[in-house]
């Protein structure tokens, strides 16, 4: 009789451990998804800011017409991209162009004194930061999740329920690898 109770007790504890590990894996995986969605939110915010930026700087930056045009194009490409590879490429292109514009701004002191532009500049700086911090946070979450998935004993549960490794957000272009330096 006692032996039966002991066995039941052990089984009960095991079941609870399995449930606990399963739940924490699910929780971590959701955080990964959530972090990914956050990157999306910030990229969209950048798309929303660009028309406003172009409108503000157009009058001042007469020699930069080509850069401004290619920014508009890159934005359109990024917004219309329908697969992941295209999208990452288009957003990378957009980041590069924005960086180039930031350097070009140095040559226009009138623009740097414009209140409207200064407010916009803070928004852009912050959006670029938010994109990279969202990416950073995504990679952190992937790291936590993958570690949990590979470490004993939760790796058994992960194998049983077929949890897959998540991939890090790697940046192909070396220049893009640095957190965008936005200084107007």
């Amino acid at each position, binding site marked *: 009789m006692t032996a039966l109770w002991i066995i039941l007790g052990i089984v009960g504890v095991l079941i609870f451990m399995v449930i606990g590990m399963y739940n924490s894996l699910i929780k971590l995986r959701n955080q990964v998804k959530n972090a990914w969605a956050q990157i999306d939110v*910030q990229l969209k915010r950048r798309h929303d800011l660009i028309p406003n930026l172009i409108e503000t700087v157009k009058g001042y930056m007469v020699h930069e017409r080509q850069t401004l045009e290619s920014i508009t194009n890159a934005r359109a490409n990024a917004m219309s991209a329908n697969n992941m590879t295209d999208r990452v490429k288009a957003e990378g292109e957009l980041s590069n162009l924005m960086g180039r514009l930031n350097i070009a701004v140095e040559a226009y002191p009138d623009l740097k004194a414009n209140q409207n532009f200064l407010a916009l500049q803070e928004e852009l700086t*912050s959006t670029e930061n*938010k994109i990279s911090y969202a990416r*950073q946070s995504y990679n952190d979450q992937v*790291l936590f999740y993958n570690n949990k998935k590979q470490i004993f004993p939760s790796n058994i549960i992960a194998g049983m329920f077929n949890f897959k490794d998540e991939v890090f957000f790697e940046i192909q272009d070396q220049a893009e690898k640095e957190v965008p330096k936005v*200084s107007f």
Partner: protein
Amino acid sequence: MLLFVLMGIVLVGLGFIIGYAYDPQGGGAFIGIIVAVIIWIVMTLVAFSSGSAIMLSASNAKEVTPDVHPQLFNVVEEMSIAAGMRKMPKIYIIPTDAPNAFATGINPDNAIVTVTAGLLARMNRDELQGVIAHEMSHVVNRDIKFMTLAGVMLGTIVIISEIFLRSLFLGAGRSRGKGGQGQIIIMIVALVFAILAPIMARLLYFAISRKREYLADASAVRLTRYPEGLASALEKISGSTEEMPMANKVTAPMYICNPLKKKGMKMSDLTSTHPPISERIRILRSMAGGAGLANYQNAYNSVKGTNKNIIPAGELNQQENLGIREGMGLAASTDIKTTTRSSHDIIMKVNNYSFIDCNCGLKIKVPGDYASNVFYCPRCGYEHHIA
């Protein structure tokens, strides 16, 4: 954690010895422990339910909306994204010229970050980010909860020994009769313990606080990937001589820098809530290899010349290789007078002042509760109407 447990042992031990001193035969010791723990739990519940409200109203803080200070708002949002917080904390601002900041909120979902006007006046974007990251780290590391628990435990220990010592002196005239020599010895032991316990608890509390400060610095760098931002912020804060009003021993651990420092007075290492600023700066500046927690640990060891673990071992096991980013190079462009003035404008804005530019060039600030809707410019006499 170990220090916290030690503090708990001091509390339980105090309950035990006092209970035992009063009633060695019966269950006095046991009752003593129960009473001590109950007092601690009740006080903790009170602190948890009203902690941040008390702290905010005590420091005269006002909530900031995004339009008042977009940069502050953005920086806080950036850091909450980096920390993976579900909700962005609320932001409050304190009208004082002393540069400092603190965070409150028992759990990350209802966190509040508070900065002073003096901080906003002095910091550039990178430095502000470092300070905010430090405060956010206190929130996500659950330091607020932890320090509240420890602080209340300290308070409980102080109260219990106080009550015991007082009752001992009051009851000194009455003879307890029954007790023999053994009872007297126990009483003396209890007396000594009641005197020593608050001192021990205090030292433990300060030690916990300092450890959490180092950890918050390490986590802040991990979030921003830019140790120099926080280092230079700390340098600026330590260089200021303004006193932080409304800060006291209990709220001190929540601030980024010890708000109780006095000019010309050197705090002894053991009785300070914060590690010496110069040391924190040196550790941050010697983080060469990367921005991870392990890099901070290495820098800590090389600066202090010890092998103490400042980062919990579980955190160090995460394999990570985090590069340090470049600074944004946004120097504080204007002098301190101008930035202090604009930080005062912010305070007025959060207090519902309206700003009116007169044609003569004077900027007039009208209080929100100004009764009439017409006033005259004090310089040129022009008649203004408030919408």
